[in-house]
């Protein structure tokens, strides 16, 4: 199967008064039709910047320094502003974290959803648009759509607003949905409802979803494949069951151990990851996780580990694996080129 979206060696930096903040440092992955891929990481891991880079929604001081983003094989980076606007919303849509601030408070819900349809389908009449909007409201299971159509966002609860945001994103039946922490601002009960809605809509519409979150529990319930990011890089990628049952990277393992679970015995103490996330200013000496890693060796602080594929769907960036697997004995120069290139050892 051909990937619908490919991110290739993406590097995104922000030019700030203090210097260059390298938020994304060489990220590669493919998204295939009909799958839900989770991107997990803490704040500052570069997961949101990576997703914003895809649709070129970055701030003015951001620069995509290297790499490429391909949609059905076409580079999105070569598109003009006008061309990318046709892709945005119609082919690739986004749902953001905060449903409170992403809606226009002065415009009725029906109009806001209809706007999206009108922009991409200028030939439609007002009535045709209204019919489609009512249909969308039903699709995202908002009760009494006719009444809700004319209401303002302040008359909606947080969960209902997120449903409206999803309706806007789905208005043009996109083939890719980027969901950036869509349930983080919601209560667990409402989060549960929204996740269910996203899963059933994904099946119904056969979209691909890139699901960005910090919550491994949400990933476990939603995704088919997971990418774990740290310090602007992918540390581990695996199919969902593999990642949870056999996490390899010390960071992934650390995340699992520091997470509380309601079906675990309380005696299992939480094991936090010591220290705090890295400063994204400037270059790392070695593995970005090395300063917080319990299993770190001397080499970890000096050289960036290469990516190693344990099997075709499971890759890890960690020196421990490189040694254990004894797949490659590399000289220093090779390591450096490997970092710049990547993953040729698949």
């Amino acid at each position, binding site marked *: 199967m051909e990937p619908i979206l490919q991110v290739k060696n993406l590097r995104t930096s922000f030019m700030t008064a203090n210097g260059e903040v390298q938020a994304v440092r060489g990220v590669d992955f493919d998204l295939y039709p009909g799958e839900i891929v989770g991107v997990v990481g*803490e*704040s500052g891991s570069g997961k949101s910047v990576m997703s914003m880079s895809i649709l070129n929604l970055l701030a003015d001081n951001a620069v995509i320094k290297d790499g490429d983003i391909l949609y059905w094989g076409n580079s999105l980076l070569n598109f003009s502003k006008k061309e990318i606007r046709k892709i945005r919303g119609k082919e690739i849509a986004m749902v953001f974290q905060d449903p409170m601030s992403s809606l226009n408070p002065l415009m009725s819900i029906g109009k806001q959803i209809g706007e999206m349809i009108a922009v991409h389908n200028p030939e439609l009449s007002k009535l045709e648009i209204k019919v489609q909007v009512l249909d969308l409201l039903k699709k995202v299971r908002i009760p009494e759509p006719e009444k809700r159509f004319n209401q303002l966002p302040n008359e909606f*609860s*947080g*969960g*209902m607003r997120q449903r409206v945001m999803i309706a806007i994103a789905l208005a043009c039946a996109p083939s890719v949905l980027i969901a950036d922490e869509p349930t983080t601002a919601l*209560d*667990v*009960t*409402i*989060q*549960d*409802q929204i*996740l*269910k809605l996203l899963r059933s809509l994904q099946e119904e519409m056969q979209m691909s979803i890139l699901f960005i979150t*910090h*919550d*491994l*529990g*949400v*990933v*476990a*319930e939603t995704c088919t494949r997971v990418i774990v990011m740290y310090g602007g890089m992918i540390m581990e990628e695996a199919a*969902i*069951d593999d990642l*949870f*049952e056999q996490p390899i990277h010390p960071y992934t393992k*650390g*995340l*699992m*151990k*520091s*997470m*509380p*679970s*309601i*079906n675990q015995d*309380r005696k299992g*103490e*939480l*094991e*936090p*990851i*010591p220290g*705090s*996330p890295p400063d994204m200013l400037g270059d790392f000496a070695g593995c970005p996780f090395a300063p917080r890693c319990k299993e770190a060796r001397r080499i970890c602080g000096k050289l960036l580990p290469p990516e190693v594929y344990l099997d075709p769907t499971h890759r890890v960036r960690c020196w421990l694996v490189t040694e254990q697997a004894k797949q490659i004995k590399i000289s220093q120069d090779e390591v450096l080129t490997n970092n710049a290139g990547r993953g040729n050892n698949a």
Partner: protein
Amino acid sequence: MLEVKELTKHFPVKGKRGRVVHAVDGINFKLRKGETLGLVGESGCGKSTLARTIIRIYEPTSGQVFLKGQDISGLSVRELKPIRKLMQMIFQDPYSSLNARMTIRDIIAEPLRAHKICHTKAEENELVFEMLDMVGLGTEHALRYAHEFSGGQRQRIGIARALILRPELVICDEPISALDVSIQAQIVNLLKKFQEDLNLTYLFIAHDLSMVRYVSDKVGVMYLGHLVELCEAEEIYNNPLHPYTKGLLGSVPIPSPRLARQKKKSEIEGDIPSPISPPSGCRFHTRCKYATERCKAEAPKWQEVTTNHFVACHLHD
């Protein structure tokens, strides 16, 4: 240590005379010294208001709060001052709860100054440095400002400020909700260590049930201003009685794909209703699968079903 009796807090609704927000309605519980009560519920259920009413940031509408046997709900501001030393609060947002214009030393020393505890600067510094060390920060951090710290470090500063007066009751209002997972566990373990070392009593507020399990001896579940269930921590996970508690437990994502696929969820439909005109009878009946006519008409009584297991639900009369 702490006893709350029929505590109620209503807020008047602006522009609508006589209408009130029923934020907290008739709450009863007891908390022994050295124990932790975890309080959970959706946003808007009144858990933060309850905490703030106990600590007298808000004036209670009715009901009483006993701290070490003394009724503090009717005390004047002046009478309250020595008591405030005994109860302190840790806030949710480590970004807005620290003054951006004060150095860390001044932030942590402020409670000492407010209660005129130290007579010399050296004495004050000694206490502040000791406290910084206890929360895992160094003396070199003392003269910096809050913006130079990460979220987890700021929360440590908030904890240092709350504990420098050596309080006995500490109210933690979602102290970890704003932090990353790896940092959450650090803060939770730090709070647990202080509880052992200083014999603290915690009222720990959270919006979901997963982290609460690791810190609490007892867990209380709130819904629309009412306490609907209260029991020993393990009991609430193994034998939840109230349909709302079951739904709340069912909606926490399970970090295991295999278990997540197996799990049969008891889910909660719809949104939390407005606390201005809460539903009649049992406040949960609008979202409850088991609701009967009786639930709509009559509010269930708060009763002890088995030893130390309290619930307010007609299913368990």
